[in-house]
């Protein structure tokens, strides 16, 4: 009964979404307030219905209702509770339901918190948001119904892929989707603005917090995914340029560009047309990512043949949404008024450079991801584009981006003083050179990655700190006054400094772990000793152990440094009975200085075991840095300008008295 309620609720939500797509839009065009007013209650009701639907599926998982096909395929009665819950979105149908739920959550948020939006804009945003919802609900109901029943019901389920039975991955999809779907807000606002033919600073002030929220979650989601790959796949790597990873990275790059260009719209009323385009592209890339992940078109063109209905539906929807919105852009963008002018060497100019580099980087990833498909279609030649391509083109794009990142915030709006900014960055430059020299001395050899990476780290971190000390005039005025200034600094300014520091930490983590990593592979026998970096690993043997729903081969390594005991590491090779599968559980001892990483493999039958041991200096900073970036985003989000009902609205309205409300 409960699954049927969920199914029914989803159908009702679809009908509401249809109503919400048309009525507010038509109402806004005709200026009918009563029609526009349909949007808010419809959006809230839609969210509640999707919540009921999602809760019903979760219930079916919790009580292990094996008359539901989806539960049978992805759950098992012996599975720990947390994975029963995460199993809900650990599969195609459930993840689409989660997608829809988050989409309607954002729609409801506009309805609840959008009280100070102009009425017509709010109506149009809600309509566009509901339109996206219609597409996804139809897709879920028609091709991927999670509530499908099975008769007769089997005694037990098939279990969840053990690779997904992991706390890191349990929360990865919801975070990622909050990011992906969050960009739908920027998209809806962009389409609404195109329909109205008007973009102004108030619009940007509305779009920015939504974009920032989505960006924070996407940053967290990607970091979580990469952390999972690091400890669960047992390769010691943390990023593989896999199409699925790229699918989440492209919207991140575009979203980062959007965040920055929206600042220019907000502060200077410029770059409007570009910002609209970025908003459309960011969400389009999220959709493309869904298409790639859900269809498998890139990993294998033929996985499509298995269920053509699904692939063709998503592609059709993609063409309708992306093609339609870009067409609308082509028609309406020329009517957008040009905004403020600025010199190339200015804060705006630096943000344009940021956008150019990020957009190019995003384009590069897109080309690298789609190139095999395009080449095959044109010439019949098949290639796979791997990490060498991405590393070769990505690093040259990131170097100037990070180089400019320290300078940009020191430039004034409209017309900046580059010489002055560089003058103020002289300590950062000196520090960068010093770090590069140390790295070069440590490395000794030719690869320039280490000195370059360390220099960028030094430049960026010190640059961000210098910008901050300039703002609070540290050392120039008495300390108490600096302190007062720091307290008075807007949260958005704090957020920027923190997020930029986070980027620096990520650069540090990547550089150090890629350059100074030590890796030892080989067969080890008990009591054998291997030196890995400054540490010595002593293999103390391996034995079988039993887990809650698996058995495992558990190895034991004693780690010493200079004869002193450091720690024990217990890597596992787990064997799950349902579904039958083996997973590698690397044993990791993370510290802020370095990670010790051990993996154990099969026995060689002669008392030895295949082992992989790593010493990875500073690798944790990749994820700490990502967290810091995310924290910076949330800090900026807490700025009072963005808070609901903040005086912004009055100020915004006062600044634009000449613009009458359209409709």
């Amino acid at each position, binding site marked *: 009964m409960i699954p049927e309620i969920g199914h029914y609720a989803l159908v009702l939500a679809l009908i509401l979404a249809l109503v919400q797509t048309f009525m507010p839009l038509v109402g806004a065009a005709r200026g009918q307030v009563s029609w526009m007013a349909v949007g808010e209650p419809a959006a809230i009701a839609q969210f509640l219905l999707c919540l009921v639907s999602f809760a019903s599926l979760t219930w079916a998982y919790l009580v292990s209702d094996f008359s539901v096909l989806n539960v049978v395929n992805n759950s098992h009665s012996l599975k720990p509770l947390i994975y029963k819950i995460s199993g809900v979105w650990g599969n195609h149908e459930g993840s689409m339901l989660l997608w829809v739920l988050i989409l309607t959550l954002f729609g409801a948020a506009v309805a609840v918190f959008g009280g100070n939006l102009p009425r017509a804009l709010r109506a149009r945003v809600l309509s566009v948001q509901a339109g996206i919802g219609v597409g996804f609900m139809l897709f879920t109901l028609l091709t991927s119904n999670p509530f499908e029943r099975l008769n007769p019901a089997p005694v037990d389920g098939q279990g969840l892929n053990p690779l997904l039975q992991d706390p890191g991955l349990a929360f990865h999809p919801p975070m990622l989707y909050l990011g992906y779907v969050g960009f739908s807000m920027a998209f809806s606002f962009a389409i609404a603005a195109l329909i109205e033919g008007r973009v102004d600073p108030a619009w940007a002030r509305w779009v920015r917090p939504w974009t920032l929220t989505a960006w924070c979650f996407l940053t967290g989601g990607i970091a979580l995914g990469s952390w999972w790959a690091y400890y669960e796949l047992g390769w010691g790597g943390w990023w593989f340029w896999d199409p699925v990873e790229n699918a989440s990275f492209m919207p991140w790059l575009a979203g980062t560009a959007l965040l920055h260009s929206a600042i220019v719209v907000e502060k200077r009323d410029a770059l409007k047309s570009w910002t609209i385009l970025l908003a459309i592209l960011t969400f389009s890339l999220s959709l493309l990512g869904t298409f790639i992940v859900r269809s498998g078109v890139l990993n294998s063109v033929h996985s499509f043949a298995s269920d053509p209905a699904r692939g063709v539906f998503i592609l059709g929807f993609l063409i309708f949404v992306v093609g339609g919105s870009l*067409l609308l852009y082509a028609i309406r963008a020329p009517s957008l008024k040009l905004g403020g002018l600025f010199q190339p060497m200015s804060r705006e100019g630096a943000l344009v450079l940021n956008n150019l580099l990020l957009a190019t980087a995003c384009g590069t990833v897109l080309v690298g991801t789609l190139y095999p498909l395009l080449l095959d279609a044109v010439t019949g030649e098949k290639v796979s584009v791997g990490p060498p391509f991405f590393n070769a083109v990505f690093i040259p794009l990131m170097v100037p981006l990070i180089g400019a990142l320290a300078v940009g915030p020191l430039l004034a709006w409209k017309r900046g003083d580059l010489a002055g900014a560089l003058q103020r960055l002289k300590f950062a430059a000196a520090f960068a050179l010093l770090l590069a020299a140390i790295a070069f001395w440590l490395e000794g050899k030719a690869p320039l990655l280490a000195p370059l990476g360390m220099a960028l780290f030094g430049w960026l971190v010190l640059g961000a700190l210098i910008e901050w000390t300039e703002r609070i005039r540290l050392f120039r005025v008495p300390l108490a006054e600096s302190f007062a200034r720091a307290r008075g600094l807007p949260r958005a300014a704090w957020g920027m400094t923190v997020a930029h520091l986070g980027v620096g930490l990520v650069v540090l983590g990547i550089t150090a772990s890629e350059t100074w990593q030590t890796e030892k592979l080989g067969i080890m026998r008990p009591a054998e000793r291997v030196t890995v970096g400054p540490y010595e690993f002593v293999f103390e043997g391996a034995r079988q152990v039993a887990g809650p729903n698996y058995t495992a081969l558990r190895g034991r390594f004693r780690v010493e440094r200079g004869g002193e005991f450091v720690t024990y590491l217990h890597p596992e090779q787990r064997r799950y009975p349902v579904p039958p599968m083996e997973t590698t559980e690397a044993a990791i001892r993370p510290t802020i200085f370095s990670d010790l990483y051990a993996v154990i493999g099969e026995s060689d039958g002669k008392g030895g075991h295949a082992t992989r041991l790593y010493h990875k200096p500073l690798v944790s900073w990749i994820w700490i840095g990502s967290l810091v970036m995310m924290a910076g985003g949330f800090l900026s989000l807490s700025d009072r300008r963005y808070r609901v009902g903040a005086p912004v609205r009055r100020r915004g309205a006062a600044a634009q008295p000449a613009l009458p409300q359209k409709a």
Partner: protein
Amino acid sequence: MKLRPHHIAPVAIFAIVAVFLYWGLYLNPRQIPTALKSKPVPEFELPPVQGRSLGLSSEHLRAGEVTLVNVFASWCVPCRIEHPLLMELHAKEEVTIHGLNYKDPPRQAAAFLDELGDPYSRTGADPTGRVGIDWGVYGVPETFVVTRDGRIACKHIGPLTPNDVRDKIVPLVRALKADPKQEKTC
């Protein structure tokens, strides 16, 4: 209202990409040269498909026997088409065939082999596709001919046809079996 080229460019580019994406769905697998040709097989080690006891690793491909490695998945329709040919090759004991099960739910992979027959001496289950990436797997099915010392002599993309087997795979396998130093590829 005036349309401007730089405003039309995004939708035009997207239109081209969309055409390719659609095209991509219906591409026919074709024989292609592989970057891995004549190179040693990538290092890997995989557990068997559910219900089978022998897993597959790069060790097994270097064991002094000419082998076929067939990449298959239950969701792949062309795999079903070529399957009888593999069964026939297996029955004739022409060559040892190993199966690499690519991105497949374990139960469905097992059901596939239970239903259609199991021509494989060993199977490797690669549910995440990580090993497939190393092998340069592009479209399923794919079939590799591997030499005695574990080098890739041939990569065939797409379903095998009776002609492929008769004119390409079997002659190559026989040549490689007859002369271990044979450098022949396809």
